[in-house]
């Protein structure tokens, strides 16, 4: 495995690409998955050595529990959670804007805590509770956070909105009554280029009030 990657790197003219980099991470993670799940397909990969081509990836069957639904997917260890969520499961509410953990558009909840799904390998999310924006509303009824965003006009283009809402959701799971300053700090990792921050803060405080009245954040 390692040797083959070494060969490939020789062919790559540019510096280490993101794919190469993540593949490096993935190799370590693969070991963990192999130990716990007993799934490994090294031999298969060796049987199909890469020529002047993309290396045949080793795909690992995985179950991802997203919004309470257990999805069956097959992923290479290097796949990020955002790519699996968006490209394989077509849950496109989660956005990819920088693909390197710098903007927060891809924020989802992992076991109730906000994470950047572009910096999370899909295999590390196996067996954990993943929540995306699609899991928030119950049917036609918006979650109080979504309703607060709508009424406070807390978005313009809407591209960062899913991530913002999930970050707020994460905050209000841990602290149902945040101060403005606490909310500001909790949301500092989510960029909104349209500049709706003041409204997002208003919506956060509004949502916290709605949730306290309603008896907590079950989102």
């Amino acid at each position, binding site marked *: 495995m390692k040797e083959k990657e070494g060969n490939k790197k020789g062919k790559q003219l540019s510096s280490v690409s993101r794919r190469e980099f993540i593949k490096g991470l993935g190799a370590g993670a693969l070991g963990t998955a192999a130990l716990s799940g007993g799934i490994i397909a090294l031999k298969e990969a060796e049987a199909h050595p890469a020529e002047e*081509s993309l290396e045949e990836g080793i795909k690992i069957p995985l179950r991802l529990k997203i919004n309470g639904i257990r999805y069956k997917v097959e992923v290479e260890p290097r796949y990020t959670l955002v790519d699996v969520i968006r490209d394989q499961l077509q849950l*496109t*509410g989660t*956005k990819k804007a920088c693909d390197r953990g710098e903007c927060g558009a891809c924020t989802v909840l992992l076991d109730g805590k906000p994470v950047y799904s572009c910096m999370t390998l899909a295999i590390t999310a196996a067996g954990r509770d993943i929540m995306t924006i699609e899991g928030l509303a119950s049917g036609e009824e918006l979650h109080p956070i*979504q309703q607060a965003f709508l009424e406070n*006009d807390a978005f*313009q283009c809407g591209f960062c909105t899913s991530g913002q809402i999930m970050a707020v959701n994460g905050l209000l799971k841990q602290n149902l009554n945040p101060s403005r300053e606490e909310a500001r700090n909790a949301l500092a990792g989510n960029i909104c280029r349209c*500049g709706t921050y003041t409204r997002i803060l208003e919506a956060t405080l509004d949502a916290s009030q709605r949730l306290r009245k309603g008896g907590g954040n079950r989102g």
Partner: protein
Amino acid sequence: MKHHNYSIIGHRQPAVDAASKATGQAQYTVDIQLPGMLWGKILRSKYPHARILNIDTSKAEKLAGIKAVITHKDTLGKKFGFVRNTADQYPLAVDKVRYIGDEIAAVAAVAEDVAEEALALIRVDYEVLPAVFDPLEAIDPEAPLIHDGQNNISARLAWEFGNVEEGFGESDFVRQDTFYTQPVNHCPLEPHACVASFEPPDHLTVWASTQGVFYLRNQLSRTLDMPISNIRVIRPQVGGAFGGKIELFPFNVCAAILSQKTGKPVKIVCTREEVFTATRCRHPMIIHLKTGVKKDGALVAVQARIILDGGAYNSTGPVATYLAGAFLCLPLKARNIKYEGFRVYTNKPVCGAQRGHAVPQIRFAIESQLDIIAETLGLDPIELHLKNAVQTGDVTLNKQVITSCGFSECLEKIKAQRSPALPEGKGIGFATCAFVSGATYHLFFTTEAFANAIIQANEDGTVSLITGVADIGQGSDTVLAMITAEELGIGVKDIKLITADTDLTPYDWGSGSSRVTYQAGNATKMAAAQVKKLLLEAVSHELDVYPEELVARDGRIFVRDRPEKGISFAEAVSLAQKSTGGEPIIGQGEFQPQEAKVNLQSGEGNTSPAYSFGAQLAQVEIDKELGKVKVTKMVVAHDCGLAINPMAIEGQIEGSIAMGHGQALYEELIQEKGQTLNADFINYRLPTARDVPEVETMLVESVDPGGPYGAKESGEGIIVSTIPAIANAISNATGGRIHSLPLTPEKLLKALEQKTK
């Protein structure tokens, strides 16, 4: 604000697409997945200036999963450009590359990473050419030529109104400065993207994250040599644009050609690095500015000589050069004006339109200089502005016609908000702006219609509003729905929007130069008025009254003096259809630009049918030891004509202030020998929730005679005054004046050091 008797207009209306955005259901171009879809990627130049000797794609073509590789040989070799007669960019480089990022080849593959891998297998032989990065060096006759021609000047405009030399002679005080502005990126969170699907024999569909579907269609038509009717451009939701998605990009053309070659839909999504380096940025400018005033602050003469660093291609260059000159003085009047603008090619990323399009740069210079002048003469800067303020009915020296103007009222409101003496380390700064409500002229030398709307009434009491307008997140769909609802007396929820699809909707130029509310708003109001007329006629027969006696409001059409006598809107639609023997109830409206043409050479002409105005106060706290600036509050007074949706306007103003905050204080693309060193959000800092100041907005309603319900531009122009207001506040707090953007701690410490010397 005045209280109007409107049931919808002037009320705080959540966006029509709010629920879809809050639930993640809103579909953006990057979300599109079609059966059999391939991923496209672009190979870009590694060199800032080089001749291409050979491109060998053979290895890439053999890579498993690669479906097509294209170079300029697969294109028609037609140049494109924002302004047709200054087209200078090829979809794929033909003979040479002019900046790091210039497009050389494109691939389509079964997966994004396969496409990426193929790029590394394309071999390009270059002959590296001498490059030039500094616009002052590029303008030198001896500089390496970036394009064919005599020199590297991509646009030059010059004009004089009055006589500035005489004006300076008459002045009591003349001040001369040079100001510098930096390159900044739009950073829309949705990267530039498109999906192209070619359906044989000759039809192309393109989904694009774009500001204007018809403009993109025209450009594709010319570049691909396809009739416009064979091309369908559709705008899904757009995740931010700010001027950066107004143009055709090479990747749009590549996606179309790759789709034609492979018979599959092809999707191209720019990486964040590509958005930073290979789309567009704001023009950096070097501004030599000389202003002469009387002792009382009356502006006598203003002279500006500007060099715009354009990067490798023309893009919106001539327009930017014009706008910087056209807004040299507005919202102020001067008796003599002289302007000379050079836009210069350099081997760097291309500069184009961005929120405020060339006006924020010039206004940073002028408002800074006026602040210096006021301080020197012991005048109040607000009084100085009041003295020179344009008024309703004025025609400026360059023939801008001021149909409505609440500028003086903005100044008075701001003046009342100004706090008295401030403690050490705190400061306030003041600055103003004026901006267009779209253009009056056919800048692009085309014959297309300008803004149009069609409204069809449905028997269920709803109406379909069909318009080519491309909402890019600024909330224009909501404004048009509100206008329709107000006119027809129904609810915003009753308006079904069909927008931004060149096969289904009538022509609209798109979201650019703050034109939609004024221009498409007028078209929409006209279409709705026609539907209303048809309905009132039918109802008047039924109720045996004159149509003039009827009112459409709250979902009913009723007799004004006897509200109980009436029928529902839905019944009225059925009635009207029946009375015409089944003809649909359709209204059509348009807005055409005035005849007054702008002459780019002489600088004369009315830029826009109406102008918005604004004034701002910035409050700052300075850590003098570290040079750190914290903007604690911004107070804004904005004349937007009439606030159709005050909630959205406040949001737009806050957005302008957030972006202006970043661009005033820290945003800057660091370029070293044509290479961008900070093409990511860690090294190119954007404002976050912890950075933006509190904003207090006061809306001034001057009610423009030509705007729909009196509305004008809002939200774009405010960035123009945000940047100089912050600069002036820093100077007010510290006495240090910084002549170049961004206003970094390093520069502030240096300015303070110089002051104490």
